[in-house]
């Protein structure tokens, strides 16, 4: 069993309160994490400027090079994590064991996180829209066009309250170190693995350990303390969390994506060409990501589309996590899968909703102490169906019949929208919509991210304030 102490600005801290992180199925302990209370976080927060100073001793270019090395180590190295050594294989096994995610999914996420670390230069170039990083480091500078620009850092360290169920989202905070800002992380209760391995890899790569704090502990208390202590934080959660922090400039909230695929009237008759794209968008990463499609809108052929998706997704079985074909993750919180299935059963009673996967066997698979939900395809005969945009943490897709003219209103918010249409007018409407964050024009699966495009809330805009500096000559 691995022992993970809290990390206080790089220094391991042994707590008298230790939580066990257990195997999702057998309950066997896999890790012991040292938890801290909110007072420690508040007290440590006063030293955040030291983290920034330590990073400012290195140039952005040096930090990017070290992050690249950290990416290699994260992906391939055997690292000292807590009181143990950890190979990539150990990491994948541990992550799967405590989260219930298939091995294949854990492998994919290690690649994704490593990719971001190894390609930070390009990603930051995209996030800053080509700004010289030395201008951010210095606070001001002159652009090629001869204009002085200034960006004021809004914090010394970014706080992040991390989830237990989506290791892929760590890509969002990884670039922060290269921006010379520290990290204050609350690892997810069943997924401490990624933040601890990133920390180990970065320190091994030569990044000052003083830049990192990792505080395992009780969700609400620790999360609240981080959000209260850090001038900029990101948090991952459900609709309630999003609503709670809505409009708070100090907090960037990441939650359900309600990502969608829409067919324009000009392309919908060719829907059969896009079945694999739709299946990928719904099913990839176990349907757990905010970038998985949860609704598909079309004005006609919706029953056939739903039927074709059900034919592909309906037979997918629950497999052991180490089976290479395993694509469904367990719900590890007792009763949650059953509660979700209960809510869906209630939705299906609506006369406008048809369960297209009803003939493919039971969807709720209980394997105490965990449970699974097999993919569900629901057909909605009208865009007025109240459950048309619902999203859960498993492959669920709503295929909604909706006139093109009503789509934008009926779709509501979408983190990612793939629009399969050549209709210029419809494209213009989609581009103008403020309800769509990332817009894919043409047949691009919703989970396919171009890392050279900003994702959900530009990190630079969140961490820096664009302001004026005048220098006397």
């Amino acid at each position, binding site marked *: 069993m691995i022992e993970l102490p809290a990390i206080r600005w790089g220094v391991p801290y042994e707590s*008298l309160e230790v939580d066990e992180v257990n195997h999702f199925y057998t309950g066997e302990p896999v890790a012991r994490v040292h*938890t*801290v*209370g909110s007072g420690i976080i508040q007290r440590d927060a006063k030293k955040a400027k030291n983290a920034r100073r330590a990073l400012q001793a290195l140039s952005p270019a040096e930090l990017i090079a070290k992050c690249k090395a950290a990416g290699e180590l994260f992906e391939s190295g055997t690292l000292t994590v807590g009181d143990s050594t950890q190979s990539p294989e150990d990491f994948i096994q541990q992550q799967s064991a405590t989260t219930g995610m298939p091995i294949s999914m854990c492998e994919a996420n290690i690649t994704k996180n490593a990719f971001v670390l190894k390609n930070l230069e390009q990603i930051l170039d995209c996030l800053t829209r080509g700004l010289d990083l030395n201008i951010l480091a210095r606070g001001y500078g002159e652009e090629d066009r001869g204009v002085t620009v200034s960006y004021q850092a809004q914090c010394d360290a970014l706080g992040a309250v991390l989830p237990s169920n989506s290791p892929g989202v760590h890509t969002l905070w990884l670039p922060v170190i290269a921006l010379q800002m520290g990290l204050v992380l609350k690892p997810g209760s069943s997924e401490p693995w990624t933040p601890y391995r990133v920390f180990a890899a970065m320190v091994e790569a030569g990044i000052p350990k003083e830049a990192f704090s990792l505080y395992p502990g009780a969700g609400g208390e620790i999360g609240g303390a981080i959000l*209260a202590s850090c001038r900029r934080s990101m948090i991952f959660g459900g609709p309630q969390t999003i609503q*709670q922090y809505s409009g708070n400039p100090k907090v960037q909230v990441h939650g359900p994506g309600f990502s969608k695929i829409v067919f324009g009237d000009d392309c919908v008759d060719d829907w059969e060409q896009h079945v694999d794209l739709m299946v990928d968008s719904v099913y990839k990463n176990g349907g757990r990501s905010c970038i998985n499609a949860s609704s598909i809108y079309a004005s006609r052929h919706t029953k056939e589309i739903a039927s074709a998706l059900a034919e592909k997704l309906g037979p997918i079985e629950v497999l052991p996590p180490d089976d290479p074909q395993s694509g469904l993750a367990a719900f590890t919180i007792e009763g949650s899968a059953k509660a979700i299935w209960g809510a869906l059963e209630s939705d299906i009673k609506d006369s406008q909703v048809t369960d297209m996967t009803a003939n493919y066997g039971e969807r709720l698979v209980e394997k105490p102490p965990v449970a699974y939900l097999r993919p569900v395809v629901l057909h909605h005969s009208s865009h007025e169906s109240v459950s048309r945009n619902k999203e859960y943490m498993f492959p669920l897709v709503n295929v909604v019949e909706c006139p093109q003219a009503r789509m934008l209103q009926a779709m509501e918010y979408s983190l990612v929208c793939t629009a399969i249409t050549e209709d210029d007018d419809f494209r213009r409407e989609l581009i103008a919509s403020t309800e769509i964050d990332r817009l894919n024009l043409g047949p691009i699966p919703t989970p396919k991210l171009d890392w050279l495009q900003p994702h959900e809330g530009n990190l630079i805009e969140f961490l820096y304030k664009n302001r004026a500096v005048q220098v006397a000559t």
Partner: protein
Amino acid sequence: MASLAVTRFPTSHLAVLPMSSPASDATVVAARELLDAHTVETVAWHFHESTGCPFWLEKKNELNFDPLTEVKCYDDLKKFPEFEDEWLRGGPVRRWVPKGLADKPVYVFETGGTTGIPKSRIAVDDFRTDYSNFSDTLPDEYFPKGANWLMLGPSGPRRLRLAVEHLAQQREGICFCIDLDPRWVVKLIKKGWMDHLEEYKKHCIDQAITVLTAGHDVKCMFGTPKLIESLCLELEERGTSLAECGITGIFSGGTEFTPQWTKFCVEELFGGPPEESGIYMTPTYGNTLMGLACSEPVTAENKYKITYHAPQPRAVLEVVDFDNTDELVPYGETGRSKLTTLTQEFFVPGFLERDEGEREKPYEEYPWDGISGVRPFHRLASATTVGVY
């Protein structure tokens, strides 16, 4: 009927006791005999027509035994049905006043009440007795006689506020208090208004710092863990500390008073153990129904382990099986905290607390069972909102 003698639990000087010492068999037996006798006397008082309260006299008719003749020792209290705290909600509150005390001035203290009707308990002198007894356990070196006190805790219809004030007076001091409405705090948490919560906490801390810096010679204080922590952090922010403000003795309590929190306070907020920092802190465990359970000495050597012993025989704490609540768990095992109150003013047989912990062996100074690792009962924990106060 003769009035009950006030039975004080043993006094001690906790700061000088290096480690817990187990109780001898003889002291355990003697304490048990005292408890048995006290139980019989208390039950006789509460169920006698001339002295009992209307509630218990009426309840007596529903019992399938006669408490006056069939309660001969503490264990006989198991004959009573489980005490339902719902009985404490709503009026008339006079039904809880024993006839034997009917001519005394009566207080009512409330607990809960963020929504709905709070639970209430009457009191005449119990809170004074409990805190006078507690006063005897405090080391004079750190809680000097004549020093003034700060009550950094809830105000309003709470027993604690008057009890701390009495404690200060008992020790020849004067108690300064702040305004703090815990019901509003719980509402803020439930609403998710965390910014408001933070501001309210600051409002409380501002009041405390105003008292501490106004030349009132405050050396002792009660504070809840979260407020003590916030006070220390704010003082640090202002370039000072509790020690510089003159504080030498603190008592605190509740399920948030954990070994880890104590470690953090002692090592980081106070600046070391009492002999280095000059600040001594003792944990307590109690509520409106019970008096005040004291702790064995808490030190770095025993990893800041906190073990409470009830002020027996006035109150008894047992650690019982989660499902069979008449059965004690073996020593060292985890169970639910069960509380019995046995005073002239109030009789509560076998009330199941919302806490759990480990059963601990009798201790030299408290030769009866204790409880350690007190925390919210895991089956109810998700429904429990722990406020900031």
